[in-house]
């Protein structure tokens, strides 16, 4: 039993998007989709802050926040969305009705539909290793399969700028827990009550 969480150090993010590439390869997410904002488990968005001539450019990584009180789970009719023993919010593809309710309910825009065309593309690019065999709603799992092997999530493992700090929030010695406990890292949109476990240093 762990309580996995992540800290995003926005200041350290270079905007190279290596995390997006690594994630989409590992998890076979639709990197082939047309829209950039479309179907990613993790995204890095370019944001401009301030007014001319004081404009600051920043890169802002987002991901499923693995909420403690996840609205996506509350609305799921079939129990397809569930929370595992380590506090990771997962989807049982066999039970997913494909109603899209969770996509609407997630306040962090972390979910997207894995549609029929995506299945075809997945089979085309990955052949026998394809991991998606039915339509379903998809989102970040903190690479639960890698965690089981004792590895970090693929986005964390590839992050060039050490902008993604992953760890067990219950382990006071982990860097992630220290950043959270010291109050340096804060969650987004706390007022919505989802209690995210991804925190931000801005």
């Amino acid at each position, binding site marked *: 039993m762990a309580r996995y969480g992540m800290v995003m150090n926005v200041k350290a993010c270079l905007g190279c998007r290596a995390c997006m590439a690594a994630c989409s390869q590992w998890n076979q997410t639709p990197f082939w989709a047309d829209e950039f904002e479309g179907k990613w488990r993790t995204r890095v968005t370019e944001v401009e802050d301030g007014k001319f001539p004081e404009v600051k450019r920043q890169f802002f990584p987002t991901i499923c926040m693995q909420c403690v009180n996840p609205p996506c789970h509350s609305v799921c*009719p079939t129990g397809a969305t569930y929370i595992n023993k380590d506090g990771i919010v997962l989807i049982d593809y066999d039970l997913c009705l494909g*109603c899209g309710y969770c996509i609407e309910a997630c306040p962090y*825009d*972390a979910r997207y539909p*894995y549609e029929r065309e995506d299945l075809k593309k997945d089979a085309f690019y990955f052949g026998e290793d394809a991991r998606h065999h039915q*339509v*379903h709603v998809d989102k970040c799992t903190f690479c639960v399969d890698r965690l089981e092997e004792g590895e970090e999530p693929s986005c964390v493992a590839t992050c060039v700028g050490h902008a993604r700090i992953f760890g067990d929030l219950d382990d006071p010695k982990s860097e992630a827990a220290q950043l959270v406990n010291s109050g340096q890292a804060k969650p987004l*949109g706390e007022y919505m009550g989802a209690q995210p476990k991804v925190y931000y240093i801005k």
Partner: protein
Amino acid sequence: MDLIQQHTWGWFIAIYLYLGGLGGATLALGILGELRFNKSKWFGIGTSLLGLAILSFGLIWLVFDLLNPLRFLLSFWVKGIAHSWIARGMVIIMGAYIFGLLYAVAAFFKWTTFKKWIGYAAMFCGFGVTTYTGLLLNANVGIPFWHTPALPVLFTVSAFSTGCAIIMWTLAGKNDHDSEHLFHAVEGFDIFLISLELLILFAYFDFARLGNAAVMKSAHLLLNNPLFTIGFIILGLVTPLILEAYASVKENSKGMAAFASLLVLVGGFLLRYLIVWAGVFQYPHGLAG
């Protein structure tokens, strides 16, 4: 601010929300009319079956909105009933079918006491269906224009108003005393409902005026959309209100009231469609402030 309109649900869901509310309200009002106004058994049977038919037609749209419509059978697996409005809705809808059909059978065979109690259960489920369509949207915490207790109230009142319109249509051609009596009772009830709807809308937009940026954006989108201001508010609410109020004090005015109910029916759909369309949320990077 990175505010954008949701794009997961579109007019398929809007049609479902509309027909679900309409079907549920027709079922509930039809049975109420039959039980309270001693209408003929065929009125009760007809309106309850009509309500269920409308509901069924609505469910088709919901099924076609699924990623894979063939998976609809999974919707009977309501493991999320403790917290999900789709799961709860499925149970309420099943209740509406079971009690509605039993009511029709009981009405046909004139099992009076059984019919009354089953009728109440069917009415309760019909009412439940109308309210749940609003609660369904309400659960989306990231879309603050939907995440307000006013939404289920608005949808319920609107659904009953459209239900009144259907009942008036079924009665418009009949000239016997009972039908006339019920027609005018429904007409009066509809005048009350439309007035209430206007009041709720006023409260809704007043809340939006003082709300956060996403709520304001939703309200702004609606108030700048002629489909909402002219289509829904003027033609779908104010005009039928005036027409029905006028018809209620005039003899031989059923035609006018029937026309007003047609406007109410169109307005009801526009309301669902536009509320779904105007669901605005904020990208997470916008939440960082």
